[in-house]
Structure formats: structure tokens, C-alpha cells
């Protein structure tokens, strides 16, 4: 049963890295770096969708296992990054067991990129969460609304300028006025 399991085949890492580099072409912002899990690459945000589509459909690569989408706010980071927001895409190739960790940077003034939902159905909730926590918009998402925070919530909690406590706490909860004779003295 376990003979046909997905296993990591590190001998393909170099070939896959070169192929990805070729697919990314001029959109790549960095060289494809080999990591313990597979390959990491930085790419221009506008090219993300086409690049991942090509990586998914290429018969030699087959990055068709969706793993995760998340974001990082680099506004407080000690080293300079190209833009404030980084969206990190992770997909896995069942034939080689390698992971592709793709980073695309988005500017603070216009945090928007193309949605991956037509490509990977699992991107739906991940993108909603990134929108919920960072305010990054995904063009073409069928139902982009808050997922974990309440719909009437104000602000984007995982941004670095959002404080850990002190803002918006319990504002949307009903407040009951103590009636005569039954009130608590605080």
C-alpha cells in the first residue's frame, strides 16, 4: 500500500528549480532557491496566477496539490523588503514531493492581486482570511468577505500597526443597562 506514496525526491530539485526559473522568466524577482522542503521563489505579483497555472499544468512539474496561502506584513521588519505586504503561496507536486513556496510583494497603496480560485478551489477561504487579516484584495474572488472576524469589524488585525489590545474590543456586543436595584457596583 505504501509503495506509491508521495515521497520527496531531492534529485529532481535542481531540474525543477531550473524549469520554474524558465517559466517565471522576466517576472522572477529572485533566483529559485533550494530549501529543505523544495524551492522558494519571489515573483512579480501580476504574474502569480499565470505562473502557478503553468506550474500546475506542466507535465514535468505538476504542482497541483494546494497547500496554503498566507501573508506577511513587513512594515516593522529590520531588513528592507521590496514592498510592505508579502503573499506566500505554497503548492506541492505529487510526482516529486517538492514544495514550491512562492512570494509576491504588494504595495501598501494598492494591496490587490489576482485571485487563485479558478485554479485552486482551496484558495477561496485562504484568500478570504488574508483579506480579513491584512486587507489585501483578490480580484476575481467569487465571495470576498470577512471569514474569522465579524462582518462589521473595523480594521485588519494582523497588520503590524494594529495593536494587540485596546482597540475595538467587544464594541459589537450588546451592552445591558443595569436596572434599578439590580445593578452591580463596579
Amino acid at each position: 500500500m505504501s509503495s506509491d506514496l508521495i515521497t520527496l525526491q531531492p534529485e529532481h530539485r535542481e531540474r525543477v528549480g531550473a524549469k520554474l526559473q524558465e517559466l517565471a522568466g522576466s517576472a522572477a524577482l529572485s533566483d529559485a532557491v533550494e530549501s529543505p522542503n523544495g524551492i522558494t521563489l519571489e515573483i512579480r505579483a501580476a504574474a502569480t496566477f499565470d505562473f502557478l497555472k503553468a506550474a500546475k499544468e506542466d507535465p514535468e512539474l505538476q504542482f497541483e496539490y494546494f497547500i496554503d496561502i498566507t501573508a506577511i506584513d513587513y512594515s516593522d521588519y529590520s531588513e528592507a523588503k521590496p514592498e510592505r505586504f508579502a503573499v506566500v503561496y505554497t503548492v506541492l507536486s505529487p510526482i516529486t514531493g517538492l514544495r514550491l513556496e512562492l512570494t509576491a510583494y504588494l504595495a501598501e497603496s494598492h494591496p490587490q492581486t489576482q485571485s487563485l480560485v479558478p485554479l485552486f478551489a482551496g484558495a477561496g477561504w485562504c484568500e478570504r482570511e488574508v483579506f480579513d487579516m491584512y486587507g489585501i484584495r483578490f480580484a476575481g474572488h467569487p465571495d470576498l468577505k470577512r471569514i474569522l472576524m465579524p462582518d462589521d469589524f473595523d480594521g485588519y488585525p494582523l497588520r503590524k500597526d494594529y495593536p494587540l489590545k485596546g482597540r475595538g474590543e467587544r464594541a459589537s456586543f450588546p451592552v445591558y443597562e443595569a436596572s434599578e436595584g439590580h445593578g452591580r457596583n463596579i
Partner: protein
Amino acid sequence: MYVFQSEVIEEDEGTLHMNVGPSHPATHGTLRLKLEIQGEKVINCEQEIGFLHTGFEKLGEYRSYNQFVTVTDRMNYISPLNNNIGYALAVEELLEIEVPQRCKHIRILLAELSRVADHMFSMGAMTMDLGAFSSILWAFVEREKLYDVFEAVTGTRLTTSYTRVGGLAFDLPDGLEDRVRELVDQLQDTIDKLRDSFLENPIFINRTRGIGVITKEDALNFGITGPIGRASGVPYDLRKLRPYMGYDELKFEVPVYEAGDSYARYAIRMDEMEQSLRIIEQVLDRMEPGPINYEDQKHVLPDKEQVYNDMESLIHHFKVVMPGGQHGIQPPKVQLYSATEVPNGELGFLLVSDGGASPYRVRVRPPSFHNYQVYSKILKGHMIADLVTILGSFNVIAGELDR
């Protein structure tokens, strides 16, 4: 503000809008479903989550690496030890340290015991939702014994917080190995009982075969991992893909089913529990005395005995524990993703370090979040009674779903 009115919201032309949850016995947590039904048939379903959102990822940016271990308990509260271990492993990879052999063995032992407890409980609950009541009691009795073991090891039953960066909070108590060996036989009996009572039971087969089928393509597209993915023919197990903590030295099979229905999801967990018992027996045979913590005290909390009696260890203890500035564990400035196989699938931690005592960003990739998304798609066309079957076979844990 949310207003939950009566169960039935409105009715038009034979279509009924019905609300399930967020606090409903069959949802096993705080999940809400907005259903459109015609008769007993579900024609549309919208999921709403986030009722248990606690901001773990934000909190992680303000807590030290060791403090965050306590937060991981609260993610999947059915198998907290697996979360502890997955997180500790991620930080160790960030620091590029490797724990001693005994620590690895203890971690594997507890991870597999915890996996059995999780599968046992979730499948017991699933059969209870289908109307069989004895099975959950059998499962609960065994889980209780497993929790007694966890209590003996960690001091608590639920919020275990057993791992530390680079090791463990403390070693196993004396005589635990024998106790676990005894337990393994009892667990095998209960697994056989759970298997025999259901897998050839016509009522169970009628209610689960062909119910909630996830195709392999959907499993890949939605990022479904763990037993649910493997029941749909995705042969993906991180213990084999990247054998962390020495899983490659142990002999075990990974069951894979092709059907992708609720029956396969039940059957696969029975097989997985048996494989876990195999792993436990092998680990017990290999376990030898030795240190449990990484030796360099710059990264790892020193042993309490040493802290009380040795000046240098006391200084190291303070350096690791004190907040702010140049104190704490200071990993290199890197971004790292590390994933482990927990009972529900792939639990990943994306850690971004800025060189300080707290992570710059902690992303938790919870298996339930990715597994549960497909639910509304596969529910369409099923009966209301199948709603609980499918939900039970998913084992969605709201703690890690909403974080």
C-alpha cells in the same frame, strides 16, 4: 450584530431556509450552516466559521518561542500533544538544532498515542451521531485511559504543553513503558470491536457508503490532507514524505483508500490506529535512557535541578526567560515552513524571525480549515441525516479551524 432567530427562517416555493448551529450538538463545535432544503434534501449550503477565533497568530507575535507552546494546546484540543510537537519541531528547525534520541522517541510515542486518542474519540462521536450509543462509550473508556497516561506524563489531561524548544518539559515517569504496553493490547481489542461492529453492519453501510464522496481531484484542489485526503486516494503522509524525528527508522504502512466516502474515512482511521500501535510498540522496544534536552543552554531551558544548583545554568535560564532586548532565544533572520502529520492532516507552522525573542510572524496552517471548506460542495444533493454523517467523518475541530 448577529441575530439568530428560530430554526426556520423563511419559506418560498417549497424551498426552506434552515439554520444549523453555531451551537448545535451535531456540529461538535461552533460551526454554522445556512441550508436551503427541499423536503429532506439539501440543495444549497453556506458555511460560516470564525465563532471561536481567538487571534492565536497575532498573540504569537507578542509571546516568546516557549510561551507559544501553551497556545498550541488550544488549537486541536482533541490531540494537543501533536500540536506541541509540531510547533517545537518548527522552532528547532529554525534554530537548526536536533534533539537527542530519547526525546525523539518520547515525542513519537506520545504523538502516536495522541493520534489513537483523537481517532478513537472522533470516530466514536461519528457513530454516536449515526445512532449507535455503545461505541462512543467504548471509545471514551479507552480515551480516558490514554488521558490518564498523558496526565502521568505531562501533569495535565488537556492543556499538556509538554514540549519545550529543544526538548521536553520533563522525562517520562517510572514504569510508564509497561503501562503503555499493557494499554496497547486493550486498545487493539477496542479497535477490533469498533471495526467489527460497523464495517460489516448493514445500517452503517447504508448510511455511509457513497455518502459525501470527495474525488481525488477535489482533494488536491482544496488542499485536503490527512486521513480524509488518503481516503480519497491522495497517498500523502508527512511521516513518509519528510520523515521527521526518525519516523524513517520505524516500520509502518500508510493506508490509502480510493472511495472517498464517509465509509472510507471511518475505515481508514481504524487502519491508522493499528499502524500507530505498531509504531508505539517499536518505539518502546528502542527506547533507552539518556538526555532529553539539547545540550546548548543558549537555546534551551536548562534542567530545573541545574538551575537551582549551578550558577551558569541559572544565568542561562534568565537569559532564555527574560523579556526584551538582547534576551531570549534569538534565531537567525529566516523564514521557515515546517509541517507535521497530526491526526487531521498537515499542521504547518510558517515562522518568520526578525532575530528577536518573539517570532515576527507565526502562521498556523491548520488541517481542519483546509479540510472543511469542501463540505458545502459535497453536501449538496444529500439528505439532512447525511449532514451529520459527513460532518462526523470530517472531525472538524473549531479551535484550529478558527484559531
